[in-house]
């Protein structure tokens, strides 16, 4: 019975189970629908809140803009507030703000934001500038006949690609680096060199300033000027002859501004070399093998438009060591430099009209250099590197050779873009004052802008018979450009 009853209940149970399962599915579907409904409601609520917040923000911004504008108007129409004890500013009644006023204010705010943006990304980075200089030239003779370091005929010389970096180190000092890639005269390949890398104090007491590292030491007027900043294409012959080009040194330089109402500046320096060629220190460098230099300069204002700047300089290397080695002489002997002494006198007269000096100016610069080096004379050439057994053989003796060199130039600027001038060079060979060279160079400069300059120069170079060299003529076209940061320091003024 029970089995029969149970067997009769089975279909009922199965049906019930099916109904229950269907009900559960319906309930689940209802829940999903409810959830979807809730989600939709939440979305709508969120969007409504977002819309309300946006409207509120816009209302606040409009109100604040109106207040700012009113205050701006009040400030611009009222005396400036007192530094202390100023009367409190009275509340400003709300005024109607036109869309034009809001636009104007937005423009002002944008400009301030724009100004701030410019500073932030570069904070703490050094200022960076790049200078490029290419010299196209034609010379009538080659280096074998002229002693020049570039090929005769047509020549293109990427003379420099100069990277300048400068920044403050801390509140007490700044530093700068000049890295130069110059094309090798023989191979044309660029060689990278550190021209300057120096640290300079900014807050020493007693009007002192200390510079340390590699830098162009202060001697004369143009010795420490980079090639692309010269008023003409090539460095004057006297500077090449007696300083060895740019006055580069690894050392220390102290400058003192005399504490008097008149401008007088004194510079003293010490370094391992000065210009080129460099000393060979060997195993150990003695104190006397260092180079010592100094410069005293002053200034006189003749009228507000006319000025004179004058300076005297001195360089002393008490004991030069293998600087350039034993130099062969035409008579078969050699000369070896043992002591280096150079003195200089420089003068610059400028007409810089206050009113339109960007359009007109006149500069006359002159520098006289005197060399009085001591040499080891070797009449029979036993010290020549080409000698089978180079060395002292008893015929050597010591003596001095005095020589002079001078350059003088005049540059006249007649518009913001155009200037022209004339350079005269005359120099005696430091090792043989009978060997004389002179040159004259008219030049014309077109400064398309402060950062883009083209210069055309003709140079005639002549030698006397003692030199064994031949005269030649050259045309140069120099193109110099600057990108990035570029500011003229005090020395480059």
């Amino acid at each position, binding site marked *: 019975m029970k089995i029969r009853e149970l067997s009769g209940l089975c279909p009922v149970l199965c049906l019930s189970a099916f109904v229950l399962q269907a009900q559960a599915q319906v309930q689940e579907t209802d829940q999903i629908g409810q959830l979807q409904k809730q989600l939709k409601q939440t979305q709508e609520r969120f969007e409504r809140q977002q819309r309300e917040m946006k409207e509120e923000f816009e209302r606040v911004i409009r109100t604040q803009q109106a207040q700012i504008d009113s205050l701006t108007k009040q400030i611009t129409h009222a*005396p400036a507030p007192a530094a202390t004890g100023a009367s409190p500013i009275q509340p400003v009644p709300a005024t109607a703000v036109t869309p034009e006023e809001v636009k104007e204010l937005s423009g002002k705010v944008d400009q301030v934001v*724009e100004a701030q943006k*410019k500073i932030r990304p570069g904070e703490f980075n050094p200022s960076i500038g790049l200078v490029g200089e290419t010299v196209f030239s034609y010379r009538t003779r080659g280096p074998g006949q002229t002693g020049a370091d570039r090929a005769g005929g047509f020549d293109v010389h990427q003379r420099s690609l100069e990277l300048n970096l400068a920044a403050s180190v801390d509140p007490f000092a700044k530093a700068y680096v000049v890295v130069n890639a110059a094309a090798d005269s023989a191979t044309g390949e660029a060689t990278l060199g550190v021209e300057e890398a120096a640290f300079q104090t900014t807050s020493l007491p007693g009007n002192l300033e200390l510079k340390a590292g590699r830098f162009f030491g202060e001697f004369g007027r143009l010795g420490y000027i980079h090639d692309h900043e010269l008023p003409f294409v090539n460095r004057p012959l006297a500077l090449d002859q007696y300083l060895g080009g740019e006055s580069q040194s690894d050392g220390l330089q102290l400058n003192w*501004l005399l504490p008097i109402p008149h*401008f007088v500046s004194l510079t003293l320096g010490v370094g391992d070399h000065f210009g080129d060629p460099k000393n060979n220190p060997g195993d150990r460098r003695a104190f006397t093998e260092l180079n010592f230099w100094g410069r005293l300069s002053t*200034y006189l204002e003749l009228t507000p438009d006319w000025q004179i700047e004058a300076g005297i300089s001195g360089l002393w290397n008490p004991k030069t060591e293998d600087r350039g080695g034993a130099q062969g002489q035409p008579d078969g002997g050699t000369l070896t430099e043992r002591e280096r002494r150079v003195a200089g006198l420089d003068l610059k007269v400028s007409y810089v009209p206050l009113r339109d000096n960007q359009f007109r100016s006149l500069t006359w610069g002159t520098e006289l250099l005197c060399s009085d080096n001591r040499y080891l004379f070797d009449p029979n050439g036993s010290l020549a590197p080409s000698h089978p057994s180079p060395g002292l053989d008893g015929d050597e003796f010591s003596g001095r050779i005095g020589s002079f060199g001078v350059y003088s130039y005049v540059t006249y600027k007649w518009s913001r*873009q155009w200037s022209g001038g004339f350079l005269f060079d005359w120099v005696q060979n430091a090792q043989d004052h009978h060997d004389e060279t002179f040159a004259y160079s008219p030049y014309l400069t077109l400064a398309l*802008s402060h950062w883009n300059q083209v210069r055309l120069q003709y140079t005639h170079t002549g030698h006397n018979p003692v030199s064994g060299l031949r005269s030649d003529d050259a045309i140069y076209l120099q193109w110099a450009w600057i990108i990035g940061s570029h500011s*003229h320091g005090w020395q480059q*003024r």
Partner: protein
Amino acid sequence: MAGPVEAARIRVVATLTDVADLTRNVGGDLVEVQSLATGIEDTHGVPMKPGFIPLLNRADLLVLVGFGCEHAFLPALLEASKNPRIQYGKPAYVDCSRGISPLEVPRSTDHSEGDVHPYGNPHYLLDPVLAKVAVQNICNALVALAPEHQVEFLRHRDDYLARLDAKIIGWQEAMKPLQGAQFVSYHEHWPYFAARFGMKYSGTIELKPGIDPTPRHIEQMIAAMKAEHVPIVVREPQFPEKVPSLIAKQTGATLVKLPIMPGGVPHTETYLDMMDYIVRALVGAVPK
């Protein structure tokens, strides 16, 4: 020989004659002000004379226009001055542009835009209302340097601002006929002035700041001026007269020579005199 009072004066070096004059008015007898510029120079082209170095070396206060106006000469002079008190960021380095919203802040400082000023146009002192901010900056610096003279400095400031306010009312009244009048100038000296007095600045003769105009630019400017009936060409005396004169002749506009700082033309030795001159010259340039 300096007496005790003179010896105790605050030694101020001002870069340009406008800030020098404002400093004299606030400082009175308590300050000895020397300006690097005489007034006839271009504001960006003051020659770097070695004679400036001893002045800067002994200065108690350096007052400058700011916004990079002196970028061509001041950094090198400051470096050579060996005076730590007046270096950038020090309290005695008084930048009068502090608190002023610059106009014409460039979106790019690329040199394709010429010799641009990264912080905006620095010629705000041609707006006499903004000169009041400069006066306040100078006063603040003097008070900070010599608090014992605060009362005198505040009195001088208030006296000067009262005179300046009275002048501003007069200038605004006088300039009413020039509301909306268009003009061009050689260099971009005048946006603040134009905004203050309701004039419309229609461009510069320079192609870009520091870059001379090209023939094409001059032609375009003449055409645009004719089309817009621009009645005034302003020539700052630091720039050559030839091109502004040619443009004025070709367009029928009136050529007006205006100083950009006190002393730029005769009888403009003070800031108030200079602004008087500028307003008179412009009002006189417009046909009645």
